[in-house]
């Protein structure tokens, strides 16, 4: 026996070098970086502080929700309601503050709403066995409708006594001129990454996506974890809603419309597998970044905005194509 036990324990299937090259997230990141380099040379307006500030800030709303969505997708589920939940939470915040309550109360009401919506989704899915697609499709409709009911379908742009605080929260740049939303995104991404890698909760999220039946048999509290995951997803939409409200300075009942598809696209481009069991926090950010860079660059290059969908759709297919090719090679 030339190999000691310690060596066996330390033995990895692939070293970090080859595992980076095998990861979809890495190649998407390469695409983002190459696109940025290309745009810096091809246009005079890309690499300006204003444009970079705008890009990084625009990324955040999709990226923050993509973090929550990634957890849902890792468990093998989907959450179509995030766009509407963002709208509902923004509206609750706006109405509460408009009615004269402070920013703390507004945020608490908004977060509370998100958690209730998430718990509703999660309980129907985990305890009553509803398909996630159906429940969250229903919530997509319900949440936006409730936002309309709550506001009587008006635009809210006055946020009571703490109006300026809210605008500073979302629109300010408290650290080195980096837009606040970007800071929140970075903190939330680190937190999500940490949870996925280092906590038992994160391990269970992956286990449920890998083999839900096995997770149940080994005593993983599958139902509770699933409810928690949908609550986190709704919470991420709520947080994005609060920040976006502060940034926009107004809430209408059509904000976040169709956003769920961008969020899912970001997660999938970043390497999350809709079949469950695979996904990273970093991937969600990279996926969101690619979508935003595509959107931004089309404008700067003077390409008709109608092409946007084609390019983003192409990116989704291309990103997943890498994964498919790798799997085909493995199965041969």
């Amino acid at each position, binding site marked *: 026996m030339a190999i000691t036990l310690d060596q*066996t324990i330390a033995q990895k*299937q692939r070293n970090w070098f080859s595992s980076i090259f095998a990861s979809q997230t890495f190649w998407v990141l390469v695409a983002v970086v190459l696109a940025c380099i290309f745009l810096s040379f091809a246009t005079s307006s890309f690499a300006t502080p204003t444009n970079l500030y705008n890009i990084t800030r625009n990324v955040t709303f999709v990226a923050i929700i993509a973090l929550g969505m990634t957890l849902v997708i890792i468990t093998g589920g989907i959450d179509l309601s995030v766009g509407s939940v963002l709208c509902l939470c923004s509206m609750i915040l706006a109405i509460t503050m408009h009615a004269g309550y402070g920013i703390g109360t507004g945020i608490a009401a908004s977060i509370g709403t998100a958690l209730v919506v998430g718990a509703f989704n999660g309980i129907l899915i985990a305890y009553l066995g509803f398909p996630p697609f159906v429940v969250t499709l229903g919530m997509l409709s319900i949440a936006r409708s409730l936002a309309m009911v709550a506001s009587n379908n008006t635009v809210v742009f006055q946020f009571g006594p703490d109006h300026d605080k809210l605008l500073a929260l979302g629109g300010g740049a408290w650290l080195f001129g980096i837009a606040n939303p970007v800071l929140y995104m970075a903190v939330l991404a680190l937190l999500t990454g940490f949870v996925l890698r280092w906590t038992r909760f994160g391990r269970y999220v*992956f286990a449920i996506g*890998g083999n839900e*039946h*096995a997770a149940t*048999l080994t*005593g993983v509290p599958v139902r509770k974890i699933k409810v928690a995951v949908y609550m986190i997803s709704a919470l991420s939409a709520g947080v994005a809603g609060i920040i976006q409200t502060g940034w926009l300075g107004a809430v209408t009942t059509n904000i976040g419309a169709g956003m769920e598809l961008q969020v899912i696209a970001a997660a999938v481009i970043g390497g999350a597998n809709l079949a469950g*069991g695979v996904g990273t926090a970093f991937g969600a950010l990279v996926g969101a970044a690619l979508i935003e860079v595509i959107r931004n660059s089309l404008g700067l290059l003077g390409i008709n905005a109608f092409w946007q969908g084609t390019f983003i759709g192409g990116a989704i297919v291309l990103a997943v194509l890498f994964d498919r090719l790798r799997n085909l090679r493995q199965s041969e």
Partner: protein
Amino acid sequence: MKLRLETRSLLWEARQLVAVLELTNISKHFGAIQAVNDVSFSLEAGEVVGLMGDNGAGKSTLVKMIAGNFRPSHGTMRLDDQDLVLHRPVEARQRGIEIVHQDLALCNNLTAAANVFLGREIRSGFGPLRILDYKSMYKRAGEIFNELKSETRPRDLVKQMSGGQRQAVAIARTMLAEAKLVLMDEPTAAISVRQVAEVLAHIRQLRDRGIAVILISHRMPDVFSVADRVIVMRRGRKVADKPIAASSPEEVTGLITGAIEQV
């Protein structure tokens, strides 16, 4: 060597006094269907029992009652001389009953070590801030695989493993817990001949640690090579329960099919 043999026989006698598992007049019906009918048997520490029978003979219903999936309609179960009343599979696990499922219940997207520790992760830190202790889990999993003489490596993804290695992961789980009783459902049904030998060796290793094993199998050679006793079920009833040495594959086949009524 002689001393060891004596120790073993002494241990053997001590074990005879208290059965690990004791089933008395166990029945289970689903509506009008009588799946298990008045079955009694007991099992001692370090004993391997082959549970055989045709499809629908009631063996998997019986095992599911021991595993906490179903509750018996009649009869009592005792584990280590204490009543065994199970409402959920998790409770069986807490009482020291481990199950190696036919489909192995493994998560393909996780490593071998993660699968071994699934539901029982080692964590370090304190209070709510406890993080997964990867180092300890890799180490312990590596030790268990070493003990099993398996080539499985703790950091390997289960996705990329052979059938035998996957079995080793599932069996390693049971060794983690210091189980009293291990239920194995068709562990050799879907793997190659060489890997069957590995799995049978693992069963002997469990036995040598004083763990009682119930082996459900269709494969006559496996049961005859590893079991101490064979129990045959037919149409919900126990039709044979005898030492393996006193039986033969022919007799067991006859009992399974009904050519031999009962022994």
